[in-house]
């Protein structure tokens, strides 16, 4: 187990390196520059700018400096938001995105597992068909359509909930973004939970559990769920990667100052330190999180040994 963890941690380093190098290469190879936005600059001004940001030095030196920044965990200053450090922006925007993502995923997990298990207990019943059709709708309805529709109904027509903006953690402002973000995961998890539970519920050990007279509730919750929900656990890793795309869209719809929103703006502004900072941070976070999921997997499923 320990060897597995160490090996995975060691693999993480070249992976982050690849991602960061790719991103940096894309930003550098692209035509244009962050300062050539509107008008042609006088040559001396341009020369000074290039000197100030170290753009006149050889590419390999600049690359080394970028890597050094990542190693030290200090991504430098943002180019667009003058006198703000990338670290500061990360520290400010991360809680927003994490709150959003965690709440959405927890909601999706609870509702999805509940609906999926219920459908699996009565396969081919009306409940099963309806919930799976709704789940399919959840997968097919893009969140940038769902979000505005929810706003239209609950904010602009019924006036129940605020339509946008960030207002701290426990606030009504979070309801619509979290619902919008979690819909697709709810649907996926419901489908995964259903098929996993269906398979397990027909297995021999469940028959044994029933045969020795356990209550149906105990059979389902204690025995079936442990094996039946494994697909849901292994979906957590990919879900996190998708959650990032999801938060980007949801943060834009609801004007939330999260990581995704900053990432898009950084790309549109060609704010290189901010792009690199967010990419490096997120890829490390995702890789570590995936490792955690794999470790959790080994605890839930005793058959798995690393």
């Amino acid at each position, binding site marked *: 187990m320990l060897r597995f963890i160490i090996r995975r941690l060691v693999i993480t380093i070249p992976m982050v390196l690849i*991602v960061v190098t790719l991103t940096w290469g894309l930003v550098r190879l692209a035509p244009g520059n962050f300062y050539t936005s509107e008008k042609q600059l006088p040559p001396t001004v341009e020369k000074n700018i290039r000197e100030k940001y170290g753009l006149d030095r050889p590419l390999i030196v600049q690359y080394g400096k970028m890597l050094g920044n990542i190693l030290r965990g200090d991504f430098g200053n943002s180019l667009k938001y003058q006198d703000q450090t990338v670290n500061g922006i990360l520290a400010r925007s991360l809680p927003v995105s994490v709150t959003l993502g965690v709440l959405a995923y927890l909601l999706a997990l609870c509702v999805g597992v509940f609906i999926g298990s219920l459908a699996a207990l009565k396969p081919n019943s009306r409940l099963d068909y309806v919930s799976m059709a709704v789940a399919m709708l959840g997968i*097919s309805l*893009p969140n940038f359509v769902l979000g505005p*529709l929810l706003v239209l109904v609950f904010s602009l027509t019924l006036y129940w909930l605020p339509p946008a903006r960030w207002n701290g953690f426990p606030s009504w402002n979070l309801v619509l973004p979290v619902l919008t973000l979690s819909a697709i995961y709810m649907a996926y998890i419901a489908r995964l939970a259903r098929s996993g539970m269906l398979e397990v519920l027909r297995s021999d050990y469940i028959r044994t559990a029933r045969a020795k007279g356990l209550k149906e509730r105990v059979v389902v919750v204690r025995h079936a769920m442990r094996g039946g929900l494994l697909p849901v656990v292994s979906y957590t890793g990919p879900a996190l990667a998708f959650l990032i795309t999801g938060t980007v869209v949801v943060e834009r719809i609801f004007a939330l100052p999260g990581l995704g929103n900053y990432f898009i703006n950084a790309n549109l502004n060609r704010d290189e330190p901010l792009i690199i900072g967010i990419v490096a941070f997120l890829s490390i976070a995702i890789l570590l999180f*995936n490792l955690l999921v794999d470790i959790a997997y080994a605890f839930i499923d005793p058959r798995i040994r690393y």
Partner: protein
Amino acid sequence: MKERETLAETDAEVQPALTPLGTQPAPPVRERAGDVIHTAPEFAVGEGDVRTAGEDLEVVAGTSLWKDAWRRLLRNKLAVFGMIVVGIIIVASLIGPVIIRTTTGYTYDYIPQDSNLIKSFPPFTAPDSSFSWTHPMGTDTFGRDILARVLLGGRISLMVGIISTFVSLIIGITYGATAGFFGGRVDNIMMRIVDVIYAIPYMMIVIVLLAMFGGQTALGQLFLLFFALGAVSWLTMARIVRGQVMSLKNQEFVLAARATGVSTGKIIFRHLVPNTLGPVIVYATLTIPSVMLQESFLSFLGLGVQAPLASWGSLASEGIQNIAIFPWQLIFPGVTMALTLFSLNFLGDGLRDALDPQMRKV
């Protein structure tokens, strides 16, 4: 091996050409023993590998795996519904714009000359608020016909979905088949690379790619989208093809091909890959909606399809700006897109059940 012999016997029985010279040829098979033809594949299926049985079945009885799958697909109501809706949407987006142009004179980028018409009318409404068939989905802020724009968006969205899936198919099949065929160390390294790429948040890199290199011309942007989305969706395809090739490569027909001196490349692409088509088609059908969804995300963020072209994502993104006043600008492209994805997903699920009954989980 017993099963092989039985099948060979059936074969001999079926082919009248094997009767000795000079004797009366046997009556046609179907007249003589129609039931034999039908029982043969059944015990073959019962006794051994489903796949070999299916292939022999093709020779003996003439009902192929594909015909069988087609029958199973038609029994699945949701899949048929999906097929019909997808068909309607494809036909509508192909010929719809022409019909609209000939009947109302509107095209997707036609902005009326009359300044009274340059505003957003609700569906089925004429400028004087009476009922009219001219704009069944209303008009957008510039007075452009939303139906024409949704149909154009459908063309672009479907095109991105299909072409990107095709790109991912080519990469995934080549990669997966190579890894699966060579096995051993090559396979180990190639699949480890796939594992590594799986864990990378590739959408971030796609966003960077499109933001940095995109936005030059509308057409260039489209090609960038095909490439970028295709290049990130091939991983699962590679895994599926690899698994299939690994289970096929030790069968007799590959040995036979090798014995007759067929080159490795030809064995992979002419003998092995065609036999993996079932799962590949299923997965490709499910890749199309997921690529379309990703395209719409990118277009929504302003990084995908650029004006004057439009996709469902970019139309929805325009519509969101005016959601409070002109909700139909979002609702029509959004709902059309959701309906298409919904149908494609059902069709893909149905195909999976039809082509691979073992994977069926009910």
